[in-house]
């Protein structure tokens, strides 16, 4: 039997990433015995047994819903720096260099500093969080992410009393991202959160998925995951986190303010001007399913917005 328990196999011994990302090649290359055994395991369990983070702490925030396959989540991406078609990032981000990597945490903080990706990986115990992820385009996925609450990082730099918002910035290098010039939006990509949103335990600073490091097209090496907001709020490949006094700009809002708000909380009652947000298509399902308020995380996050008119502050 080729399938081993997590303990007796090292990451370096298993299928190279280039191979497993090419699913077809992967299937063709595996011996028949493995193919038979493979059916017994869910795709994600398989990846996790082999991944970089074989032992992740479980999280009470995880959903029990069926996870999407790794192949779906790595071949259907919105990462406009690497092309605007869903299948482009998986091809065009292949050579994206995500190591070494530094994230600068600055602004209204008592102890601003830079973090290397190695430091970020060790800064707090990594948890697996299986979240629903809802795109503003009305499709959704369920992904087992790896990371910890952003608050762990922010507490280290000690936000001052002036800090009311957090501004995020993605990596941008036109040389590495030639398709970006056709995307129709400005780069570097920026996003923002209110400080209390950023400190909420659900707000995940994410370094992996399916028990392994993030693939480039999914925002390697470090990204945000905000499961109660539309996907574009979950900024990818972060290089800068800045604590600020005033509400920072976010790319899609700057580009089209009537369609994309600052908050962009998942809300089935507030339509995108051009399409309904009342329902969504979960990848892998035929029928649409109803979209839930705050993407089903209302119990955790609704209090952040009490007293706010969510139709105005969409």
């Amino acid at each position: 039997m080729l399938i081993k328990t997590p303990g007796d196999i090292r990451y370096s011994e298993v299928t190279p990433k280039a191979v497993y990302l090419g699913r077809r090649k992967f299937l063709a290359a595996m011996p028949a015995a493995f193919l038979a055994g493979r059916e017994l395991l869910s795709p994600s369990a398989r990846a996790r047994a082999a991944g970089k983070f074989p032992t992740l702490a479980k999280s009470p925030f995880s959903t029990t819903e069926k996870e999407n396959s790794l192949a779906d989540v790595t071949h259907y991406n919105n990462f406009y720096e690497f092309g605007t078609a869903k299948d482009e990032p998986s091809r065009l981000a292949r050579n994206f260099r995500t190591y070494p990597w530094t994230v600068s945490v600055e602004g209204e903080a008592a102890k601003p500093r830079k973090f290397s990706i190695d430091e970020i990986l060790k800064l707090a115990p990594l948890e697996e969080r299986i979240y629903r992820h809802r795109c503003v385009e009305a499709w959704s996925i369920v992904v087992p992410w790896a990371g910890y609450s952003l608050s762990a990082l922010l507490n280290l730099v000690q936000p001052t009393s002036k800090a009311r918002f957090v501004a995020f910035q993605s990596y941008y290098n036109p040389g590495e991202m030639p398709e970006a010039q056709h995307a129709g939006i400005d780069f570097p990509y920026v996003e923002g959160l209110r400080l209390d949103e950023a400190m909420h335990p659900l707000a995940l600073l994410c370094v992996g998925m399916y028990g392994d490091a993030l693939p480039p097209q999914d925002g390697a090496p470090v990204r945000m995951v905000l499961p109660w907001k539309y996907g574009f709020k979950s900024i990818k490949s972060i290089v800068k986190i800045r604590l600020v006094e005033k509400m920072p700009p976010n790319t899609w809002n700057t580009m089209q303010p009537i369609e994309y708000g600052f908050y962009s909380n998942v809300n089935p009652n507030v339509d995108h001007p051009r399409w309904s947000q009342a329902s969504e298509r979960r990848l892998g399902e035929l029928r649409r399913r109803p979209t839930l308020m705050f993407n089903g995380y209302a119990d955790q996050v609704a209090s952040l917005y009490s007293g706010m008119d969510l139709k105005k502050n969409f």
Partner: protein
Amino acid sequence: MLRRRWVKVVVFLLCLCPACWLAWRAWNSDLTPNPIEYITHFTGDWTIRMLVATLAVTPLRRILRLPDLIRFRRMIGLFAFFYGCLHFSTWFGLDKFFDMHEILRDFVKRRFIIAGLVAFLGMLPLAITSTAGWVRRMGGRRWQALHRLVYLSAVCAVVHYYWLVKSDIRLPALYGSLIGLLLLYRVAWWLWKRRAAPAAP
């Protein structure tokens, strides 16, 4: 050569290629992680491409001095309608799952849906009256006037596409300028002809 029967068969098979490609990918479960979206976009793309090809026939006939190209125009136009039907029924059946409530709500609220519907409905009478019998019954002049509706369909199809995309407008802009050029050619031709023969009683 264009008069040969087999040429028409070749053009027919060429126009059918995209549909076969789609069927092949469906057979291999290779329709991307979001098959319904993929089929919708694929058939929509080919509707517009076929419309562009239909509109290109008349200018190409004159520019290339190949009057026989007319033999393919109706067929290409019907293929535009064919892909339009696939596109419409994918949206209606697969995407909305025949949910009339939701569909009617979309009709009144979403301008890109309205544009798409106008484009599709505009092609419907053209497809119905595409037979030789209908040309005879209507008379050439009236038939031709009716079939100018294709201009409306083409423009609405591009507007429908343009209103749908989020930020990368390259493709709708490309189809838009192609259709714009083809329509401009017709205006120029009409003006030129009017000047050339001003003494019509």
